[in-house]
């Protein structure tokens, strides 16, 4: 159970000073961004915004300077992330690259791939997508069938990835593919590759989601040739590498803040004398307070070099519950009563359509609870 324990973490005065800086930046950079865009939260992409953040040194803040980082603390990075998310900033372009891909490259290819690619990520110019899911491989990630075969010229990849967020604007994918047979261990024989999205044979086809937006894609590999040095880490070690990557994917404050714009619209529409509205908003606020401290605590674990995989699963599970309750609460309080065309009506409609994905992306609720159950000793 120890792995599930998250201890509170106190932010230093330096962190609070940085927060003020970020707020001043956002007040200006977000001045013209309407609620209808903020509601997209971290699904909203703006390469121009990402480059501005990069120029401020707020992407890859914790990384070594040789990779374009600023060598600041995990908690300082946390402050920047939570401020961006609370403001509904359009961070999607660089988010995945910063959150997990760069870490993978710095850890597993510190001399070859990382120096070549990570500085561009830190500048907010280079974007990544994650090639994990496939048509027949969702939660059961070990069943991936996309295959890479070694040749003299490099690795040749064939297969198909699906639900790939941001593939249409990404410069690179980290793809999890099969390089050997599974054998006794289902998780054996998997490897990760860095794939340039412009490689011949690679096709990106949009999949429009139920919100009506293009975020997902299907990515087809048809004899895609990848240089030898783009094997990330060790051949056959893909599963354990991915497990570490997923801990980062799940650890951040984006796992509870995604429905914030709808909350803000509810607050502005609410009447303090209405007890029903006050109770509902008070409950959400209390949940935000607890989740924020838990999320911060997970960052504290990262800062201390601890493995937050199980704790992150727990926070993400709790966070998605609050994110997903938001449109139902808003419906209960304001459904049918919000003025048509108002920011509240828009946020309610948008968030209602968006939230089913929140307990699917980055690990389904059921997978996360399985991880928690393992942490409890039940599996």
């Amino acid at each position: 159970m120890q792995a599930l324990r998250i201890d509170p973490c106190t932010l230093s005065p330096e962190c609070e000073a940085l927060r003020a800086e970020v707020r001043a930046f956002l007040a200006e950079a977000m001045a013209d961004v309407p609620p209808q865009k903020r509601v997209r939260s971290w699904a909203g992409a703006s390469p121009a915004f990402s480059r501005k953040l990069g120029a401020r040194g707020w992407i890859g803040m914790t990384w070594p300077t040789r990779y374009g980082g600023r060598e600041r603390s995990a908690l300082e990075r946390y402050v920047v992330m939570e401020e961006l998310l609370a403001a509904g900033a359009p961070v999607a372009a660089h988010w995945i690259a910063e959150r997990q891909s760069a870490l993978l490259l710095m850890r597993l290819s510190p001399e070859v791939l990382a120096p070549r690619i990570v500085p561009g990520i830190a500048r907010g110019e280079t974007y990544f997508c994650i090639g994990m899911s496939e048509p027949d491989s969702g939660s059961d990630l070990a069943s991936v069938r996309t295959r890479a075969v070694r040749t003299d010229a490099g690795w040749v990849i064939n297969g198909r990835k699906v639900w790939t967020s941001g593939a249409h604007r990404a410069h690179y994918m980290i793809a999890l593919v099969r390089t050997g047979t599974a054998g006794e261990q289902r998780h054996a024989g998997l490897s990760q590759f860095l794939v340039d999205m412009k490689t011949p044979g690679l096709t990106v086809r949009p999949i429009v989601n139920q919100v009506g937006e293009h975020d997902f894609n299907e990515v087809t590999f048809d004899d895609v040739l990848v240089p030898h040095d783009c094997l990330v880490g060790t051949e056959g070690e893909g599963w354990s590498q991915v497990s570490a990557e997923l801990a980062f994917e799940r650890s951040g404050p984006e796992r509870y803040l995604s429905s914030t714009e709808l909350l803000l619209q509810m607050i502005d529409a609410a009447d303090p004398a209405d007890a029903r509205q006050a109770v509902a908003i008070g409950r959400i606020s209390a949940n935000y307070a607890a989740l924020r401290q838990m999320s911060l605590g997970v960052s504290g674990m990262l800062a201390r070099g601890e493995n937050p995989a199980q704790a992150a699963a727990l926070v993400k599970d709790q966070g998605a519950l609050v994110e997903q309750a938001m449109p139902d609460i808003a419906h209960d309080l304001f459904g049918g009563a919000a003025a048509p065309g108002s920011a509240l009506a828009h946020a309610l409609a948008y968030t209602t359509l968006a939230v089913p994905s929140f307990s699917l992306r980055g690990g389904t609720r059921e997978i996360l609870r399985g991880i928690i159950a393992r942490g409890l000793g039940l599996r």
Partner: protein
Amino acid sequence: MSDAMIEETAARIFADHVDRALLERFEKGEWPARLWGLAVDNGLTMALAGEDAGGIGATWHDAYPILRGIGYWQVPLPLAETMIGALLLSAAGRAVPDGPIALVEEGEALALAGSGEAVRLSGTARRVPWARHCAHAVAVVGGQLVLANLADPATVRLTQRESPAREPDDEVAFDGARVLAAAANPFPDLAAPVRTLAAVAKSAMMAGALEWLLEQCVQYASDRVQFGRPIGKNQAIQQSIALMAGDAGAARMAALVACADAPDTAARACPAALFSAAAAKIRAGEAATRAASIAHQVHGAIGFTYEHQLNYATRRLWTWREASGSDAWWAERLGRAVIEARAAGFWPSMTRRQFAAMPSTMEH
């Protein structure tokens, strides 16, 4: 006494002395005098009180393991109440009396009359946990911290009631009860200090009870065999208990932060105390609702028996989620303050852990 020593001391006393036999005797009406004596002799009742008043002067953070322990081991004592009473009195520069202290969190027509040596308290408090065992009660009336004499039947009428935890939850009618000490509220930036500090303590107690509940569920699910295997091997059971772990974790985090933000001396400003107390009590209440339901479902019929230990924790969780302001009571007051802050004030107030309107939303 260091915080590690406090934790060790509390754990030792509670683990060694709170057992099934003691709880059953308590529920038949026996005051656990020996256990209370151990808590007093080891300084637990005076953990939060200042050293000038003979206390340990621990912070709420240091005292958390005591409060958590009350829930984890289901300690049947007015220990949190006495700790808070002693803190309030010592922070106000007043002597702390011997014996358990009851807290008057709210009441009808509570008022002081007279002056100097002859101040008297009148009014009715509907729910005063442990009152029948206490010779003294602490209240804040009209901005004044008062220590009232509970032991005089001529001026204090007590109606005995019980909570679902079968702990005393008495009604107290004060009719000119003697005020033994009075002082200005030592925590003036804390609206309703007795209620607020009691809510912090309840949150920590609930976090402890939730931890015990979670461990108990994991143990039972691992031991109980049906269809040829432990029921904990079923995904349906695993997923339920995993959800409970999230609730227990969130409640624990909120309680720890509420303790870190609560005032332990009159000198220390506590701008975040009220918000963090509200958040902790709300979150603990919601966790109790969900976790108690899951725990009983996991345990099946045996968990519904009086004989099984489970109900000693769930009955406390159901009692404590109501006490010191229910989750809805706090949510209404927090929510009003959040709405007053408007959207623009929401996030800055969240990160400060302070909503400007909250002291005033506590008043009605």
